[in-house]
């Protein structure tokens, strides 16, 4: 098992490891676009929270390419995708009892979202 050199421990712990990875496909979505989180229920790992599935949100920014957690969790490699910050209004998530002023921003990989129709 390769060891982490002692003099690199501090840097490694403080900085963490970035999951940033080059992606070759053009982005499917752009800032300002309304999208819908897919209703998926994989038995494996996913970073798509249940409460947002099927809900509509607006793309805020494209963070660029990031290794896909859902494949990395199962030894299936990085398979990088564009990662977007998507804003979901609290009322979209929780109904009309929620505050008009609240919203949740969630970083979502491209395959988690589809165009809202």
């Amino acid at each position, binding site marked *: 098992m390769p060891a982490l050199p002692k003099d690199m421990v501090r840097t490694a712990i403080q900085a963490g490891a970035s*999951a940033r990875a080059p992606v070759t496909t053009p982005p499917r979505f752009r800032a300002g676009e309304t999208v819908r989180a897919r209703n998926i*229920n994989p038995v494996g*790992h996913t970073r798509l929270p*249940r409460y947002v599935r099927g809900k509509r949100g607006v793309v805020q920014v494209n963070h660029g390419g990031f290794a896909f*957690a859902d494949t990395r969790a199962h*030894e299936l490699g990085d398979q990088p995708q564009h990662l977007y910050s998507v804003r979901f209004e609290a009322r979209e998530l929780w109904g009309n009892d929620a505050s008009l002023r609240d919203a949740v921003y969630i970083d979502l990989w491209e395959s988690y979202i589809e165009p809202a129709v």
Partner: protein
Amino acid sequence: MNGIHDLGGMHGFGPVVQEENEPVFHEDWERHAFAVLNLTMAAGQYTVDELRHSIERMPPAQYLETLYYEHWLHAAEDLLDKKKVVTREELERRIAEMAPKEKK
């Protein structure tokens, strides 16, 4: 997976308790759990995503009743066994060796 870890939007857990001047570790063993996880991950034994998924697969009742670093320890035991670095049998043997020496 639709596991117990995905708590967003659930009710009934009470307020989030904030500790003033919260220490990084509450118990000495937590430091070791932190080190084991980070060093085995840095050594390329598994990814942070495998670690998270291991924690997600904990029995739900156990997940809720255990501490944050107990989740980490669970992942270390689970993944190092899966990768054949420290098998479950080796771990059990070592625990059996050390248990009598532990001061109560």
